[in-house]
């Protein structure tokens, strides 16, 4: 039984019948890191939020399942849900300045999580706050706990946010572009911290990013998103050494490497409001296949647990998946 299982999850706009993420399925074992790679608007962040059952306004759940440690997230009541959020699954976001509360100190914000999930007296709670801050590499936790977010530097803020996420002792952490707003030398420190937590506490992480380099080195497994669906999912080594989907290939080839760009992908991502009935990558594909024009391909197994959504690797709808 995998630790996290997402099954045919469809989430879309409330008013119109437009799925923004479409039949997303993947599984993740405990202690694994899944990297989600994709361009803006491809549904990668929404997938991250859906693991906490949090949505931006105007977006709602259509169908599908999210099982975290065998708990069906979408069958819970709000009350039950609040025991899961922060405790079983937590999230860290891109910009710590806008996601931390500016009028509360770091310590108070961490205390909120502790109050909600644990029954500690104030002395033990304070002790726990210091422990958490130390764990994420903040020196002088007694002083830092009393600082407001604006008094901390970018790196410390991001660490404080991770401490807050860890306060509920979650088993699954969703990291939505946690290093995009940070400088190069800070980025690597935060990634090292996440990797450490992953190894020491066997924390399962879903890491969302658009940076090829970051995803390459942090994750065990990569899911490539295009226009709201997974087009390829496999182990990191497989995705980089043997990319099958033409989009994944183009992403890798278009990364400037030793001063050269090997291939330039024409066009821009599909607008989800007018997405084609066939293969969503059809228009940008270099060698589009005939089937792709009208038939939507399924995610098929191309061996070695390597799943790809492309007709070139066989057509599975014959076998009845879907």
């Amino acid at each position, binding site marked *: 039984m995998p630790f996290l299982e997402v099954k045919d999850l469809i989430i879309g706009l409330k008013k119109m019948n437009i799925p923004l993420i479409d039949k997303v399925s993947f599984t993740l074992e405990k202690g694994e890191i899944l990297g989600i790679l994709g*361009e*803006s608007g491809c549904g990668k962040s929404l997938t991250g939020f859906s693991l906490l059952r949090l949505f931006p306004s105007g977006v709602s759940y259509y169908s599908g399942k999210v099982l975290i440690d065998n708990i069906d997230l979408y069958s819970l009541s709000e009350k039950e849900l609040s025991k899961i959020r922060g405790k079983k699954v937590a999230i860290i976001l891109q910009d710590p300045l806008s996601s931390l509360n500016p009028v509360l100190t770091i310590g108070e914000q961490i205390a909120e999580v502790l109050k909600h999930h644990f029954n500690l007296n104030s002395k033990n709670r304070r002790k726990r706050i210091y422990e958490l801050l130390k764990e994420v590499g903040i020196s002088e936790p007694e002083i830092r706990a009393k600082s407001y977010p604006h008094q901390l*530097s*970018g*790196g410390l803020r991001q660490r404080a946010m991770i401490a807050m996420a860890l306060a509920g002792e979650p088993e699954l952490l969703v990291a939505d572009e946690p290093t995009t707003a940070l*400088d*190069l*030398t*800070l*980025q*690597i*420190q935060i*990634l*090292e911290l996440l*990797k450490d937590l992953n190894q020491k506490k066997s924390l399962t992480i879903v890491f969302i990013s*658009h*940076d*090829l*380099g*970051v*995803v*390459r*080195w942090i994750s065990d497994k990569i899911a490539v998103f295009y226009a709201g669906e997974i087009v390829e999912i496999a182990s990191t080594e497989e995705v*980089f050494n043997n990319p099958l989907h033409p989009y994944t290939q*183009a*992403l*890798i080839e*278009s*990364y*400037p*490497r*030793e*001063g*050269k*760009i090997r291939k*330039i*992908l*024409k066009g*821009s*991502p599909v607008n989800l409001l007018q997405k084609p009935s066939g293969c969503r990558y059809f228009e940008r594909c270099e060698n589009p296949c005939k089937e792709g024009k009208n038939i939507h391909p399924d995610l098929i197994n191309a061996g070695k647990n390597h799943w790809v959504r492309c007709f070139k690797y066989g057509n599975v709808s014959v076998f009845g998946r879907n």
Partner: protein
Amino acid sequence: MEMSQFLVEIKNVWKSYEIRSFWFKKQKFYALLDVSLKISKGEVIGILGESGCGKTTLGKIILDLEKPDKGEVFWFGKNLKYISRREYKSLRSKIQAVFQDPYSSLNPRYKIKDILLEPYFICIENNKKKGLEKAKELLNQVGLDQNVLNEYPHALSGGQRQRVALARALMVSPDLIVLDEPTSALDMTIQAQILELLKNFKEKIGLSYFLISHSLPVVFYLSDWIIIMYLGKIVEICKKEIFNSVDHHPYTLMLLEAHLDPFSKKPPFEKKIKGEVPSALFRPSGCVFYSRCKERQKMCLKKSPKLRKINNLQYIACFKR
């Protein structure tokens, strides 16, 4: 007009900003300290550095959007302090800019047509027919359809807007374009498209760029010279061809280590990098990089190293190099 061999030359420029802290006490911090550089025709200079290192300020100085506290700026060999208004006006259009965020750098109330024609009318001539011809030609060159002329910016995607911003800069036939993080707001595949476009213009019409970026691969892709800045100082200048085969400033080495290259053979995360850029308000007295340097000595705390010539292709500001 007599032309210097350098498009822009900056000599010992200092620039400071004042901030008011909570108690209405004025505090001064230096964004640029004693920075000098030259840009030749047809060259691309790439500036690498972390946030707050002064790279955008340097771009503004080059564009004459900010006046330096001390030091001199030359455009085509003319000192901006003593230049006549007429000369200034004729040179102004030769140096253009493309900014990071194509959503805020285009006027939302102007049609693309007007966005492109405005600088043309001001700097070249007030001739709508010729201007439109040029606009159409440039749109074609940047890979946009002529239909966008009658669109407003909101109808275009990020990549398309960045192409419009580039076409607008090219409307007045500049020699140098300051590119301030031109691709960091764009998606990966779009970034590759824009980078290729920029490279094409450089090769075809000999355009020069002053490229400001925090992304190593982007700077490596476009630049002839790579300049690394730290806390308002240039710590290294290196020609791209030799970059991979020579020793560098300790900070450059740190940046190279921190960069996650998806194609490198060995995994990163060796936990060598610690700390972050200190605030420019509390600048250390000696070397700017002292607090994070692995090779620091006693003298680095007292004296600040000057940018020293290693050979014709490399300059480093470090006592140990």
